[in-house]
């Protein structure tokens, strides 16, 4: 359901053209749990931005659920992000001074969908934050903030959960908790999860590892587990 064909991305810095992605072919099926690995500068952030519809490729095709999103305009990309993609960021990126519940409601507000409060509450319960619903981000621990962010990503029932270094700011215990949560969501709800990380330990939780180097895929294998 995610198909990338010959995707390239070139950034222009003044007069110099910097190639970030140099021809990526990648297929990710429903229910897959893929870890995208690579050193910094390997192009994994660029790839994430394109998969997350935050950016469009310079050339190539990106087909998400039968839609070629490579040529869509800003507002159409916003629609797709809203409906089909759930983001989990390294720095949680909850909106400050806003309760966990209202943060989780936010995507539904932009979608213009009803029953927001009940659905947001449900999503928070599913990530184990039932008792933190009315807390603001500053009143939550790092692990709890990341759970709230995962609840926000799940609430619109998106096709992919896109996690960019979700454990980068967390201690080992919280990291393991968050990875267990993602694994559970993948196993129980068949969520498609794309995980960006540079840590082997974290990538181990995924069922498939794709490694990038200099804007090309150099490894793509399923783990034995």
């Amino acid at each position, binding site marked *: 359901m995610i198909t990338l064909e010959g995707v390239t991305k070139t950034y222009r810095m003044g007069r110099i053209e910097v190639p970030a992605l140099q021809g990526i072919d990648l297929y990710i099926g429903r229910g897959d749990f893929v870890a995208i690995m690579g050193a910094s500068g390997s192009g994994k952030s660029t790839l994430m931005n394109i998969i*997350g519809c935050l950016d469009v490729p310079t050339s190539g095709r990106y087909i998400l659920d039968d839609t070629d999103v490579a040529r869509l305009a800003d507002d159409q990309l916003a*629609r797709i992000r809203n409906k089909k993609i759930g983001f989990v*960021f390294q720095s949680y*990126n909850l*909106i*400050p001074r806003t309760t966990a519940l209202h943060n989780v409601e936010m995507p539904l507000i*932009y979608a213009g969908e009803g029953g927001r409060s009940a659905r947001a509450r449900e999503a928070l319960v599913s990530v184990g934050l039932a008792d933190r619903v009315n807390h603001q981000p500053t009143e939550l621990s790092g692990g709890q903030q990341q759970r709230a962010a995962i609840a*926000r990503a799940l609430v*619109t029932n998106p096709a992919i959960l896109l996690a960019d270094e979700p454990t980068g700011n967390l201690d080992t215990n919280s990291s393991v908790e968050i990875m267990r949560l993602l694994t559970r969501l993948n196993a129980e709800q068949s969520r498609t999860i794309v995980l960006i990380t540079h840590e082997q330990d974290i990538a181990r939780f995924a069922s498939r590892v794709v490694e990038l180097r200099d804007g090309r895929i150099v490894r793509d294998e399923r783990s034995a587990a």
Partner: protein
Amino acid sequence: MNLYEALRMAANGLLANRTRSALTMLGILIGVTAVILLVAVGNGASVQINNQVQSLGANVIYVYPANARGSGGVSQGFGTAQSLTQADVDALNTRQQDPDVVAAIPIAQSGGQITYGNQNYFAPTTGTTPAFPQVRNYQVAEGSFFTDDDVTARHRVVVLGQTVVDNLFAGTDPIGQTIKISRQSFRVIGVFAQKGGSGLGSQDNVVVAPITAVWAYLTGARGKVISQIVASASSAGTVTQAETEITTILLNRHQISDPTQADFQLQSQQDILNQATSIATALTLVLGAIAGISLVVGGIGIMNIMLVTVTERTREIGIRKAIGARRRDILVQFLIEAMVLSGLGGALGIALGALLAMEAPKIPAIASSSFPTPVVSPTSVVLAFCVSVAIGLFFGIYPANRAARLHPIEALRYE
């Protein structure tokens, strides 16, 4: 995204930085207060002038001698123009050629020190005929007005306005008392009811006596001068016809064929009212415009703060875009924030302005002066509110548009 959510987001954003929001609002608040207050003062002046002119009688026509001018074009100097005579007054009162003129009275003015006991006061003394209360719209509150017999016999009797009574008779009944005007004794036979009004010269600061007595005892060497004739038309609507009739009669009597050479001039209360109203309107506009400048300054303050807010919340904007906010959603969010800021400032400014307008007349220094009582008009309230919201919209567009155009990736990376 519905309006409720948008307002909730705006409130959230504004509450996040209370001091800053309050200070920004203060800019609009002061501007709107100034507009409301100054327009109220202008309106008050307009109402005051209107009342005053109305109290003089909207159907009143004044006839003045033209500037003194000799037969050969030689100026004869001030005070020598005696073009108006008692015969003119009598002619106007026959009502044969002037059906729209109800009555006409001659006026002879004399200044003079007025004393009663050890009190003294200065007020103009008006010599006239018994039709004075009818023509000038005065009511006699106590005693009575003088009669034709008093005029014929040059009786030294006077009717006083309320201000004169207050200044001369502290508590004692003036009726039957004798006062002295320029050392001549006059007996008080009546007191006028209060007319109110000030500014153009109080209507209550009058001393009225038979014109013959004024000529005989007060104007002295100047003789039987009539400084003006006051005529009343049958109604405010017939003033124009009455003016034409008076002009025709007087031109005939003075044997002048060319109306431009007339040795008299007419002014109706309507003329005065029109002039006064246009002055008051201009005053209101100028005051409003000056206050409007401070509103624009307040608007620039809003733009400034919204630009800071957008920069500060770049990351939040990135998050919102990542989870599906479209340009329009971000634009509306910040526009509504700016409009809530200015609208709230405007509403508070209206409240403060109206409060000041109501309380100002109670300040002793203002109460004792002839400063007009401010009148807050509903139009200015509605207009001020709409304008302040519009200012939020206008000055919010640039910052909000800037926010809406941010690229999500760059916004998310912003530290």
